[in-house]
């Protein structure tokens, strides 16, 4: 890793999505406790939708129609409403994604400092198009709006790990580092 490009928390590794089981039971055991505790924070079940969707994505890796149906049942909402909300926010994946979800910031700061080339390079090396998953199931590259670290363009977030000051020529080493 070059001096310039660094993970926001030194030494941190992004958690792998491979461990996610798309058919994992939702909201059982420890997740049931978390689910119940989320509900206590809000005046009604509808208000708990966003944190519950986040937890569902954490468990299953993406928000499938089955997940949305189950969440709708639990929160007494219509499935179509759950999807309306899930489709509004880019942080919810409505399609299965690779083990590494590479989110390139295309906010105004990063855009001016070469985010487009960074994205191009990721796509070239992972042999994918925006939003698609590579054949080996490892990578999905997406463009996202501002990640809130405009002083360190270009910002890239891989799963839950943020990388700052990423240059196009550093993308290859970043990908290697993931393996």
């Amino acid at each position, binding site marked *: 890793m070059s001096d310039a490009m660094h993970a926001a928390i030194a030494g941190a590794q992004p958690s792998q999505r491979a461990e996610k089981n798309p058919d994992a039971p939702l909201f059982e055991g420890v997740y049931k406790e978390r689910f119940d505790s989320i509900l206590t924070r809000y005046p009604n079940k509808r208000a708990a939708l966003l944190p519950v969707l986040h937890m569902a994505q954490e468990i299953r890796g993406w928000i499938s*129609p089955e997940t949305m149906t189950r969440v709708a049942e639990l929160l007494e909402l*219509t*499935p*179509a*409403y*759950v*999807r*309306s909300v899930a*489709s*509004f926010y880019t942080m919810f994946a409505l399609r299965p994604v690779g083990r590494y979800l590479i989110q390139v910031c295309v906010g105004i700061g990063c855009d001016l400092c070469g985010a487009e080339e960074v994205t191009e390079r990721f796509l070239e090396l992972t042999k994918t198009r925006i939003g698609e998953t590579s054949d080996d199931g490892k990578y999905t590259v997406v463009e996202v709006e501002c990640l809130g670290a405009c002083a360190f363009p270009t910002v890239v977030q891989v799963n839950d790990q943020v990388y700052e000051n990423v240059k196009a020529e550093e993308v290859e080493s970043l990908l290697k580092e993931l393996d």
Partner: protein
Amino acid sequence: MIKRAKTTQTITLTIDGREVTVPAGTTIWDAAKELGIEIPGLCHDPRLRPVGVCRMCVVDVGERVLAAACVREVADGMTVQTNSEKLERCRRTLTELLLSDYATESLREQKTGDDALLALARDYGIERSAIELPAGDGRPQDLSSPVIDVDHAACILCDRCIRACDEVQHNNVIGRTGKGYGSRVSFDFNVPMGDSTCVACGECAAVCPTGALTDKRLIVPIQPRNELDSVQSVCPYCGVGCAITYHVDRDANAVVFAEGRESPASDSRLCVKGRYGFDYAKHPQRLTVPLIRRDDSYPKGPLSSAVKGERRKKPGGLVDYDEVMPAFREATWEEALDLAANRLKEIKEKDGPSALAGFGSAKCSNEEAYLFQKLVRAVFGTNNVDHCTRLCHASSVAALLETIGSGAVTNVFADVHNADVAVVTGSNTTENHPVAATFIKDAAADGTTLIVIDSRETGIARHAHHFLHIKAGSDVALYNAMMHVLIEEDLVDHDYMRDFTEGFDGLRELVKKYTPEMAQEICGIPADRIREVARVFGRAGSALVFWGMGISQHTTGTDNARCLISLVLLTGNVGRPGTGLHPLRGQNNVQGASDAGLIPMVYPDYQKVASPESQKKFEEAWGVSLDPNPGLTVVEIINGALVGSIKGMYMMGENPFLSDPNGNKVRKALANLEFLCVQDIFLTETAEFADVILPATSFFEKYGTYTNSDRRVQVGQKAIEPPGQARFDWELVCEIATRMGYSMSYKSAEEIFAEFTSLAPSYSGLDYENLKPAGKLWPCPDPATSDGVQLLFGDGFPTESGRGKFVPVDYQPAAELPDDEYPFILNTGRILEHWHTGTMTRRSKALDAIEPEAACQMNPDDLTELGVDPDGYVKLSTRRGTITLRARGTPGVARGNVFVPFHFREASANILTNDVLDPFGKIPEFKFCAVKVEKAGSAA
């Protein structure tokens, strides 16, 4: 649960300088309407919950920002301005913004010409070409639904369709997707509308203000309302009796489109059949000339290969006219009517009146039903007159007459809103009474505890707070156990029982042994669940019980209904708001046809044939002597035809070949008749056995009254001219009667109605004038001022003692139980898009497009075990016959069960069904017999 109380507080405010006083909680929009002030708006519809998203209705309330009138509640002393230069500027800008990204061509403007956004643009004089605002990348059209065109480019995201789908129809199909320029409405998880769970009720298209959701053209191009004639009528399909305005193109002589209209029965709502199923009347296969069977087509028998039971190359469709028509020749009305009358008269003279019989229909009007039974009784001289009600609620009516002395519902279905608890049992309400179901779903979402009890997990079960998935045919055990709990835990209404019931001791004794633990073994519901649900029911301040064919179409149908009646009597749930007994009626005029006397044991208004007093009354009215013996019922008449005791029949609008149990037996019976006259609008399977076929008018071509499930008598108005030489059913009945020597003549349907009401005390006072526009409930002692009596029997029952009677019954298993050879349980019924024997719905373009083929429903695990592919075929066999059809994996069907719709002649469910009868109601056991299921290659 406690229902929200209505507020009595009022508020006074000033709108455009005029003072108005309205109840607290009223919106500015509604308060302005009181003053006759119209505020423009796009997202607001008075039938929907206001959301205030379009901002077109902004008004000035003297605050820093403008307020959306549709959502802002009035406040005391508020001063509202609905019109000013500032407001005009805001509304104009909003209109420009919406138009900047709007479809170039609006489908609504092209069809009904009432695009609300384009109307606003015209009002503000906005030229679209002059708008200098960026447009989005364009949004696509979705034409995948057979009935609705979706044009996302014309969607302004007002959410009306979402609210209509969620809150009016409770189908929950529509949502939004994406954000910014990319946002649009979406169906389920953003699939094309045609692939979604949409049930095509059309409510979304009805409320859409723009070109985003519009009805597809059915038979003629859709045109603006003001270029068409509007006819206020009702729906020809189910017993809900939705009020409809038909928009008619006089030049094309066709209904162009249908709209729900205001009525207590339907609140402007419709389902797919009512909204899109009207075009069958214009089908080219309509019968237009009288037909007489050719001499060389005797001896009689079925004509088409399908009805003969031969194998066909490919499945499908309707009666094959090419195969059947050559057996008939066209005749003049004189010849056909003379022949029919003479043959019937010959049989009467030769074999006596009881060799004749007539089937009327619950799809015909009260007038036609009244006249038909008069023909059979006064002219044929027998009481052998019955109709398809025998096959749906005969057992319910038998139980109701026995226990409470009246077969009518004690309350209307919309009153479910006032019920603490509603029970829906043996009723697939969302498919069979879709609009009644919307009222039940409404109530369930607003504080009514809904208990659904069924052997299938149907659409209404998804809205239930308690769903009991019982084993087929185990109803009596469950209800006895519920009563056991109510009595044991003293959740009964002692005062009510003391004042209004009798026979409680017998019931208490009998249900003693029905502990929940014992019932659990029979019905499969855990004992503590039975207790829980019994307590919910017993503790309810008001409870309303709905039931359907799942209760009635059993050999224990009468017993099942007796139990439900006992439950209600035990808890005093009769005669008050939110209480009652409501057997949901199937056809549009089941209630009316029974009221009019199309029943072998009773004259009009349930006056007993066996009562000398009634006999005398009708003998005097009709001027002939009448047979004092009750006649035969539907299945008994068919049995009579089989053995030769019934020789001549007249059928008005019935198709027993498909509708009656044990089709192979019906085939033989029909072929065995010496003479059969069929009066219908299409060539039915039954007509293949006819000697004479009389072309009749469809619902849309005649006047008549129809009585819905609530006892609401409504006027059906003539919308179009009949095809060819087709004539009114009542005229044909008069012709036959007169030719048989009994003069019958009326000027109009209205005149017949007057004669009927003069003999039927329950209908007394009703006439066509006071029935318009939304009908009246019978009884209606004061039609000038009242809608009729909604709640019956608050102060006792029309029984001899004035009390409701408990009739305790023991559980009995169904007549034919599964065994090693026939291990599955067969259940039959209807599906949303089709109607009975399919003669109408399968000739409706939209309905046929949605459900073109027969498919049975089975548990997916059973299909896997049998090795049947998804959408593969199965062969179903019972001791009576075999059919082959597609199988659909349906998780709501329990393992070991098969559900077959009975609309499809090529896979006729009634080839399989058991014609064993309930001993009291004489209803066949359509809902239970043993069946064998095998994997099949194809339908051939």
